[in-house]
């Protein structure tokens, strides 16, 4: 069966050890984590966690059931597909030699990114977008020389009914 990318979003108790339970479940049962994002919600007693995983459907079902079984997981949603908005942010440090500087700035402009740090030999670019945008940008920047990259992992939210 084909492995697909799944975005799982959870509301969990904001208590010590909760993240460890979730991550431990993935490692202990041999599930895979592509990215993981955690932060407090409006209610300081709960946190929201977004996990991206690669798995086939029966495994995804098992992952979601196992997560739901954890006492500290309050609510779980599979946000895969168009029903949700997904965003990721990245900081990309790219080599910026004199001959490339203009090209990089025009890419930054086209992708509506921001240059947040400049040096004689580099730019750090801040970009936010969905997976497609980030990978398109990275493909363009790669030949110019990416020195470092930091990505946040995906966060997602269900679209409100129209």
């Amino acid at each position: 069966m084909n492995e697909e990318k799944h975005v799982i979003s959870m509301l969990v108790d904001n208590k010590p050890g909760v993240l460890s339970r979730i991550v431990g479940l993935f490692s202990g049962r041999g599930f895979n984590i592509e990215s993981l994002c955690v932060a407090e919600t409006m209610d300081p007693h709960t946190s929201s966690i977004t996990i991206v995983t690669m798995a086939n459907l029966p495994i995804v079902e098992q992952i979601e059931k196992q997560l739901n079984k954890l006492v500290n997981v309050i609510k779980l949603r599979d946000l895969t597909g168009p029903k949700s908005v997904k965003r990721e942010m990245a900081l990309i440090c790219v080599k910026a030699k004199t001959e490339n500087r203009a090209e990089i700035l025009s890419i930054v402009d086209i992708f509506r990114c921001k240059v947040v740090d400049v040096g004689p030999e580099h730019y750090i670019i801040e970009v936010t977008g969905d997976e497609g945008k980030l990978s398109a940008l990275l493909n363009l920047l790669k030949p110019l020389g990416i020195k470092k990259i930091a990505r946040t992992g995906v966060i997602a939210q269900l679209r409100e009914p129209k």
Partner: protein
Amino acid sequence: MKLKGTEILLKTLKSEGVDTIFGYPGGVVLDLYDDLIRTDIRHILVRHEQGAIHAADAYARASGKVGVCLVTSGPGATNTVTGIASAYMDSIPVVVITGQVPTPLIGNDAFQEVDIVGITRPCTKHNYLVKYTEDLAETVKEAFYIAKSGRPGPVLIDLPKDVGNKTITYNAPREAKLKSYNPTYKPNMKQLHKVVELIKTAKKPILFAGGGVILSGASAELKKLAKKTKIPVTTSLMGLGAFPGTDPLWLGMIGMHGTYRANMSTGDCDLILAVGVRFDDRVTGKINTFAPQSKIVHIDIDPTSIRKNIPVTVPVVGDCKISLKHLNRLIEEVNLRDIIKKRKKWADQIDLWKNTKPLAYDQKDIIKPQYVVEKLYDLTEGKAIVTTEVGQNQMWAAQYYHFDRPGHFITSGGLGCMGFGLPAAIGAQIACPDKLVVDIAGDGSIQMNIQEMATAVQYCLPIKIVILNNGYLGMVRQWQELFYKKQYACTNLDHSPDFVKLAEAYGAVGLRATKPDEVESVLSKGLFSTDTVIMDFRIEREESVYPMVPAGTAITEMLLV
């Protein structure tokens, strides 16, 4: 009311109905023990913390209550891990209280400090580090609620010394209720209607029950369903006793050492009604050859058990007892006479399997382990609570002691944890002082927690230990015989103690049988003694457990005697 943390803990335990604790004191739980002996809670002092947790596990199984185990920090806590993992695999409600170093020292690598909450996270249903005395009462209440509700399991509470020592104004805790934890007890009736339809059309159905039936007290409902529909019943190891082992509809146990007819029925059936099971690999054998033509109904309270290992036609999430009760009610309205008539061929086929390949062994002039278990069954009239160690002894007990009642077979099923039987017998005997409790043991396993003999004698527990002594780690030897060209690598145990003298050294009674005609007299003498007794049966050294399904093959491909 002003109370100390330890007093709050004990008060809450009392309010949860705890009257017995299995434990072992140590540095950081000194205060707790100092208060404990002033209550009327009975404390059973074991000789090793692993003994405490196994005893608490068996106590829970035999009494239907939550077992409680109390140990100190560091090594005290880590010694319980094996037992916690065993209780977790078998879904047994146990609350484990571990002492912890004072909160300011946590993380400093203090003396006897260990991150037991971190260590036991994957093998507990839930666990807690209590940081504030104010949270203690509610945490204990929550722990009991989680341990016994839904699919039961062990819950650990780590209690730092200073949290136990602080005095606060005590407020009675509120009822445990968690917004994130709500087990589904009531099944979806739509699903149950589908099950009834499948029962109506099935030509070759079987019922397959597991430990969940025993845990939810659903044996009577299961029996009712089987009797009414005349569907034959098999169980997993954990399900033994859920259905009477002497009933004509009984197929015997399924799986690696299941009976020929149970395994063949599974291979040939067209409907499996699975209740409270989790389709463990020892049950299914090679997964894609399991019940190839069968539709599968799976009733279980834990949704993760369903479709974890095998595809299911009709999943039913719910408590076994409630689900079966509803199912029985729906079945009442069905005219079953013609349906049962149509299944005559299936019943005949099962009889044929039963008669051609029954459980069997050759009786010779050397004691056969199967014979010992059979005699034990006869002499106890099948009424004893049987605990087992792990290995051949466990399988012979499962095959030859025909369990008629739930809660009478206490074994480490999922984890397969050697050293379980003796402390388990202690826990079961404490839970049921008027019952005969027998540990069917091997000479290897019994030595893993033999120190608990002292506990049994100290508390005058008349438990009976039947050692099927073959001087080998028998089950591993059996695998070596069958799959490793008889190279018995490190399985020869010819340097064991004299178990008769060992029993005497502990202040117990030791008996021995070396010939078949001594078996009955040794058993009668031992079983009817009021002392703790070890009976050492010198059995045929290279006897193997059959039928056997080699790991990774279809369960219909059995090696037979």
